[in-house]
């Protein structure tokens, strides 16, 4: 069994100042674009999810806030009959680490774009991508890479083939490893094995600029995914002309991280040489309906704790004054 000692980060002077400065700058950016801050309670008394930091308050089992999106969704569903269109948040979340190097307390800044069901969502997705594109400049990153993906590229073929449960999980795990041979192994003699393996090959064949979308033509599900492809094409057409200097845009067709949560376009921000993504988000249209509200939503979260680590380990990736 791996030995894990919980890592609770104490931020000393430089890191504490950097956190304060970055948090302020990012919240300022979001406010300037119409996002209003909400601050859900640090203590969860209702749903106590696995992976959260839990303890007893008298007879009540409570947990510390483990995720802003889920906490905010609960707050919004309880307190609002119509969704505020733009909300932002900043603060810490607490999670039991999955990897030994992950901290228990993690600092985040993020935003959510919420709309009534049925409203066109393309503009909102592009709005979020444009905001995320501005973030490397705010943080003083010398260069960054924005990955555009779409959870539906994997989700819809699996649903069309009726693949659920362990088998679907095995295919997603293989794609997460970018291992097409594992997709074939996982599907064994399944009737859809050939089609899904060919789809996996197509998704994994490229990781580059807008031309990557052409790889979808080789997929047996090209027709099924026509709408998603057109959506990504339109997003790229909107974003490429306003791409800031030192930001690269890549299409990652095989992005399956958070596939159980995301339903559409996904965004991930990387810095060259960074070991972990620095911000991530996407569309998650099933969250609010599950809470009884017919709303659709998308958002992203900037992982400040990872950025603080990166500033310590790779200061060469940042402008000096930041």
């Amino acid at each position: 069994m791996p030995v894990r000692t919980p890592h609770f980060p104490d931020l000393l002077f430089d890191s504490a100042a950097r956190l304060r400065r970055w948090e302020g700058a990012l919240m300022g950016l979001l406010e300037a674009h119409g996002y209003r801050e909400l601050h859900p309670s640090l203590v969860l008394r209702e749903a106590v999810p696995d992976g959260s930091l839990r303890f007893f308050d008298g007879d009540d089992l409570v947990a510390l806030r483990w995720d802003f999106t889920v906490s905010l969704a609960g707050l919004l569903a309880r307190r609002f009959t119509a969704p505020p269109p733009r909300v932002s948040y900043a603060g810490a979340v607490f999670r039991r680490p999955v990897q030994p190097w992950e901290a228990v307390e993690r600092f985040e800044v993020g935003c959510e774009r919420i709309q009534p069901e049925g409203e066109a969502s393309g503009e909102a997705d592009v709005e979020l991508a444009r905001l995320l594109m501005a973030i490397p400049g705010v943080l003083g990153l010398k260069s960054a890479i924005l990955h555009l993906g779409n959870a539906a590229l994997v989700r819809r073929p699996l649903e069309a083939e009726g693949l659920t449960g362990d088998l679907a999980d095995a295919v997603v795990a293989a794609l997460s490893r970018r291992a097409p041979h594992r997709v074939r192994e996982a599907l064994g003699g399944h009737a859809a094995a050939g089609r899904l393996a060919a789809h996996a090959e197509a998704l994994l064949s490229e990781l580059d600029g807008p031309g990557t979308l052409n790889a979808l033509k080789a997929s047996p599900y090209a027709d099924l995914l026509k709408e998603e492809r057109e959506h990504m094409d339109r997003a790229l057409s909107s974003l490429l002309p306003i791409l800031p200097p030192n930001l690269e845009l890549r299409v990652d067709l095989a992005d399956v991280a958070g596939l159980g949560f995301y339903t559409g376009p996904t965004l991930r921000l990387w810095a060259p040489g960074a070991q972990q993504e620095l911000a991530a988000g996407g569309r998650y249209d099933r969250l609010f309906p599950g809470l009884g509200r017919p709303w659709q939503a998308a958002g992203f979260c900037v992982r400040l704790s990872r950025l603080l680590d990166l500033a310590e380990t790779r200061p060469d990736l940042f402008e000096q004054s930041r």
Partner: protein
Amino acid sequence: MTQPSILIAFPKGRLGDELVPKLAGTPLALDAEALKSRVLRIPTATPGVAALLLKGADLPRYVAAGVASLGIVGSDTLDELDMDLLELADLGFGACRLSLCARSGVTLESLRAKPHLRLATKFPKATEAWLTREGLTAELVPLSSSAELAPLLGLADAIVDLVQTGGTLKAHGLVETTVLGHSSARLVAARGAYLSEPGRIRPLAEALIASLRHS
């Protein structure tokens, strides 16, 4: 600031013995002089790219943590450790079976019939998965080497171990009673390095695949 050199983790031992000759004459050939020494960081024929020689069980950790950008390791080790890394290709070589092995004359049926089955293995996760599939329970005896001795000396009723030619089993009077799975060498990559610097990492990965699949 100049870019840090790229590290590739290569396995020591059985898989490494197969790998090193296959790399000869390729852009990732290991420096012959350094190989003869005891150093564990070996220059390759490509400037700016060095190899780390690591034990298979440690190798995935170096890659998952991003210390090494690429690595080659057996799928048996990957399945046991289940670390967060990318598995870009099945390289085909180093093929072997993960088998349940016992003394000659002992059958799977006789092992099934034991009220308290003891299995010695370096592969507890794969063994547990097989036991679950078969609806069996057993006491697992964790070992890190020389598992073949366990059934001979009464430490266990059988072992779950890798079998390539079967020569070691035969030398110890053991036979395969059933095959649990197969293993081969896999090219793995650090998720961060691959996704944040594909321009540096992908060409190296493609060169390794081309060299090793066709050798």
